[in-house]
């Protein structure tokens, strides 16, 4: 649930103001393209069940077929139009209102929305989706709790009232996410078991025509779609696990869009005149976690010493080939309230040695590092870190485990050291740090616990004052950055490659493709 899944949404401060920006969303398409748009995805969808899906392919397949009540707006950043997670646009709801203390929201549904089977979308569908989802295991119920949703009721067939248990700044950004896709209650109530793992029925711009998990998924326009007709009549997703094959295909025009390419592939493709690389900074961070309950990592001097022994620029330039960016805090750059205060690390072995001596480990020590080898770049990171630590006399034994064994160990907080990736589901430092570094959290595999940080996190969560919250989060970061619970390796960039003739790509920080945007 954590690795691929937790992608961001901004806890918005100005949800209503965002209405102004909201109208940019769906582009008008005048001419129908006769050739299909072919997109190379790195894997087949694990499940198309809107509440359970949490991989790149499934999420995108859901997002393009289903509608939510509201959606993320687009903004202009310089010359580039891109999606933002802290402003919202109408989707099934044409507009919405809330009471003075933001605990009751009313959403007014459009009357012309239909599912691809022709059923109209009404308040009953919304209520059914929310109520069922909140009772079921999955992302919807998890996020509903995060967004403080208490109850959902239909006022009339085109009006839905959502009541929160307390005002929550994350509420709107949460309900715009794909787990809150509105299902056709009449059909969904009857379907059972694993049916939705491989089927979709939504009111969005496309419908799923066929799915062969071994090779491809084919989408065609939803004939009943309420919004502007998307440019491509047909979109084909090819599931291609091998990154170098995806590279070859987009280079030769075999596919028009490719994503999740290896840094090496992107470096090669950059030389090709036929393709365009669209690169943005993601909030997906990679860090080296250390178990802070036991020696030697319970000593912050040791952690700081190792922080000075990370060959940061080698990792970024040689392993990631510039498809990553340096970090200066455990909170990613781009997340609200981010600050680099207290983070002074650079590759400096002299300093590392001095700190290690100060910690009483002048001769170094031996520890076991657990590697989830499913990510080729982590394998390289681990190899380079091992070599760098060796120069301090620190022996890093690498235990390579399979992905699910790694997840089990991570969950049990049993690893002495590990590399992990984190992309917050909700784009909020409270969410981010609360899950990663708050004492006692199930996801805090490093067992970092600082009473001051814990207290400040709770204080910030319930502080209604924005400026004060920012101050608190920055104070927390200063403490954390100094104590170095993680070695903050780098922050990934997100690159989508398009072949000539295809335009319209819009970057969203959730990294999901909107097929309708392509031209």
């Amino acid at each position, binding site marked *: 649930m954590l690795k691929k899944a937790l992608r961001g949404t901004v806890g918005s401060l100005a949800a209503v103001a965002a209405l102004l920006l909201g109208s940019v969303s769906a582009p008008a398409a005048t001419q129908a393209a006769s050739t299909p748009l072919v997109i190379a995805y790195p894997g087949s969808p694990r499940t198309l069940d809107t509440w359970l899906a949490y991989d790149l392919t499934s999420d995108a397949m859901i997002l393009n077929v289903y509608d939510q009540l509201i959606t993320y707006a687009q903004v202009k950043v310089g010359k580039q139009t891109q999606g933002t997670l802290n402003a919202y646009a109408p989707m099934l709801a044409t507009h919405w209102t809330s009471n003075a203390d933001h605990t009751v929201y009313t959403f007014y549904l459009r009357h012309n929305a239909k599912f691809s089977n022709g059923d109209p979308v009404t308040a009953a569908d919304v209520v059914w989706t929310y109520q069922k989802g909140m009772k079921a295991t999955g992302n919807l119920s998890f996020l509903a709790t995060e967004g403080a949703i208490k109850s959902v009721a239909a006022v009339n067939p085109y009006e839905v009232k959502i009541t929160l248990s307390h005002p929550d700044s994350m509420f709107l950004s949460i309900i715009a996410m794909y787990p809150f896709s509105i299902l056709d209650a009449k059909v969904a109530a009857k379907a059972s078991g694993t049916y939705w793992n491989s089927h979709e029925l939504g009111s969005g711009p496309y419908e799923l025509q066929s799915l062969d998990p071994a090779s491809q998924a084919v989408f065609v326009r939803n004939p009943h779609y309420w919004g502007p007709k998307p440019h491509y009549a047909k979109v084909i997703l090819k599931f291609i696990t091998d990154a*170098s094959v995806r590279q070859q295909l987009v280079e030769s025009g075999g596919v028009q869009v490719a994503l999740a390419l*290896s840094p090496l592939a992107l470096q*090669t493709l950059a030389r090709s005149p036929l393709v365009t690389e669209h690169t943005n900074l993601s909030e997906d961070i990679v860090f080296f976690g250390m178990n802070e309950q036991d020696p030697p990592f319970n000593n912050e001097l040791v952690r700081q010493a190792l922080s000075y022994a990370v060959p940061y620029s080698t990792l970024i330039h040689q392993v990631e080939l510039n498809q990553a960016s340096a970090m200066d805090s455990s909170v990613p750059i781009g997340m609200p309230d981010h600050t680099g205060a207290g983070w002074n690390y650079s590759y400096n072995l002299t300093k590392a040695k001095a700190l290690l001596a100060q910690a009483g480990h002048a001769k170094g020590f031996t520890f076991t590092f657990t590697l989830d080898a499913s990510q*080729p770049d982590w394998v*390289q990171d681990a190899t380079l870190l091992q*070599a760098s630590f060796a120069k301090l006399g620190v022996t890093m034994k690498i235990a390579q*485990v*399979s992905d699910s064994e790694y997840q089990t160990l991570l969950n049990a907080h049993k690893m002495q050291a590990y590399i992990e990736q984190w992309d917050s589901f909700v784009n909020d430092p409270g969410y981010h740090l609360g899950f990663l570094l708050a004492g006692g959290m199930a996801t805090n595999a490093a067992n970092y616990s600082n009473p001051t940080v814990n207290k400040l996190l709770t204080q910030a969560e319930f502080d209604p004052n924005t400026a004060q919250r920012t101050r608190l989060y920055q104070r927390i970061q200063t403490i954390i950055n100094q104590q170095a619970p993680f070695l903050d390796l780098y922050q990934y960039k997100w690159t989508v490659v398009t072949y000539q003739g295809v335009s319209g790509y819009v970057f969203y920080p959730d990294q999901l493709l909107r097929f309708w945007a392509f031209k």
Partner: protein
Amino acid sequence: MVRLTLPPPRRQKFWSRYRMLAVGLGIVGFWVLVALFAPLLSPYAPNVPDMSARLAMPSLQHLLGTDEYGRDLLTRIFFGARLSVFIAVASTLAAIAVGVPIGIYAGYRAGLAGEALMRVMDVFLAFPSLVLALAIGAAIGPGLTGELLAITLVSVPTFARQAYAGTVATKHLPFVESARATGAGVGRLIGRHLLPNMFGPLLVISTLNLGFAVLTGASLSFIGLGVPLPTAEWGSMVSDGSQYLVSGQWWMSLFPGLAIMTIVFAFNLVGDGLRDLADPRMRRSRSLSDAV
């Protein structure tokens, strides 16, 4: 005048058999020496990255090029030989240590327990060997233990069967019967009569099993069930290199694979040669039909 249908002179055939055996032994010897003296053969360390020499073409500095960490490929192949030879020898010895006693016991004491043991061997033989090795490797997880265990378990039935067949075939032979009649103990009977009689065939399948073990080990590590980083292992080196095949760094996959091929080829050559020497009529072997 020489008739054309006359079989070739026996002497020539004899020599060609020996020649193959000699070539095989020579290659095996080469790799064993490389494995023994790996640290002395190269100025480079196998596991120390040198990012400035990343992905370098074969050249005078790096005869076979470097990998994605700038490590010298030739050096890593030398060190990889240690692991391959070790895995081959260790798993084969372990398979002998487990399989031969099972076979002898089952063959000698033709009782229910022996019968049951051989049926268990049949169960293991019912799995295609690589599939079983993968399943065992996947269950235990990546690492040397899992790799060794997988290869050993897959090899055991072959040895058990051979020992079983050998025991059944010899135990009623007159000289064994007479030894028993004169009161030789079971241990002595097995040590003095049964084992020496099956030594030849066992030696042959052991040699072939060495090649089989190298190939299976390489396949496991290619799939990602190999030894931990940064250990140089031929199979995982091929796998690492495959990512760079399309981008033009062909040497990374080519040379480690060549190493695997030569050593397996040599083991097979030796096994074939030994078999022809031991018994020209003993032809079929599991390793040939099942090796990957």
